[in-house]
């Protein structure tokens, strides 16, 4: 039982939960949340791939990739949330 095995399985489980959520959820905000879970799951797997058993330093390239991924994900999330806000306002105008 090494940390890479434990957290690798965790990452795949989190990705699967996010995938199900993104497909099944009907609330738009929850769908964005589900996609964010997928990205965290992918991050887990990449960081596990970079891990080396303790005396050795981990591989920095996947770490840099995950940091890039986190920033790209926050950008995508911000645009998705702006679309949700706009869509909601338009629907509220239609109702009135």
């Amino acid at each position, binding site marked *: 039982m090494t940390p890479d095995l434990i957290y690798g399985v965790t990452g795949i489980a*989190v990705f699967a939960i996010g995938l199900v959520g993104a497909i099944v*959820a009907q609330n738009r905000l929850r769908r964005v949340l589900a996609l964010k879970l997928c990205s965290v799951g992918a991050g887990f797997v990449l960081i596990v791939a970079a*891990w080396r058993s303790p005396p050795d330093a981990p*591989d920095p*390239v996947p770490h840099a990739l*995950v940091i890039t991924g986190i*920033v790209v994900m926050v950008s995508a999330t911000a645009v998705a949330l702006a679309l*949700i806000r706009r869509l909601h306002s338009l629907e509220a105008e239609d109702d009135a």
Partner: protein
Amino acid sequence: MIDTMVIFDLLLAVAVVALAVASMTTRDMFAAIVLFVVFGLLSALAWVRLSAPDVALAEAAIGTGVTGALLLRTLHHVQTVERKAAPEPLPVPMGVQIANAAFCGLLTLGLAAAFAGAPRGGPGFDLLVADAMSISGVDHPVTAVLLNFRAYDTLMEVVVLLAAVIAVWQIERGLSDAPAPALGEVWQGFARLTLPAIVVVGTYLLWVGSSAPGGAFQGGAVLAAVGLLLLLSRLYVPRPSHRGAARVAFVLGTGAFAAVALLVTGGGRMPFEYPLEHAKTLILLIEGLVTISIAVTLAALFHGREPVALPERAAGTGGRDDA
């Protein structure tokens, strides 16, 4: 010693998965976002266990902190702008449910098989990076990869952030009565006390990135928290006349990064091939300007709508709207 850490890892893994499930199944959307924030922080803790403190800092600050604030801001908007006749969600047909479950199951099995088959702990790029550290200009491998060896990726990442803020301003153009969330007056005192501390922490994270975990993205996200607190406590209210300065701040990071990349070329050097004696100075210069851009951009993404006076309807009605 090792056994106790395995127990800790197992407990943490179970907690992370349980929080992910809970944030998907909780009915209340506010609770779901709060659970997601806890999930993000525990994931960051797990990444510290996997000796990835840089990624953990970025996930805690950007992936959880800023993302959580963005989600809560949108939830506030969705709950404040009432819909009179929101349609009931349609029931999903049985066949579709089965197809969805089969698709998710197959994909997860495929991923698990790929993970089981992939070599773990094997040599990746670590030896290459270790060999090249002496010519990178910094002492911290992750910063060396981000700002030197794979600087092109990082430039594109800053461009994505710039594209996001342009897209958000376009999407919300003409949206008038955006009810901005606001904290009460007590928070203004809190903000005055904490803002200087956050500025110091953010700047320290930026500076320390050349030799230890930290860097432009983590520092930028912490400084973005300053912007969020200023906006929420109404110590700063964006005005149409501030747009010029905001645009300069958005482009500053990308512009400086690209300019340095191109200016170091010549004399047989490629773009991003910093001269060794100036490498650290150039990297810190890029990081400093990129940090300012990231902080301003993330705060603008939180604020959302471009601060522009609307012609037909009176703007500024959302000013005193407290949750």
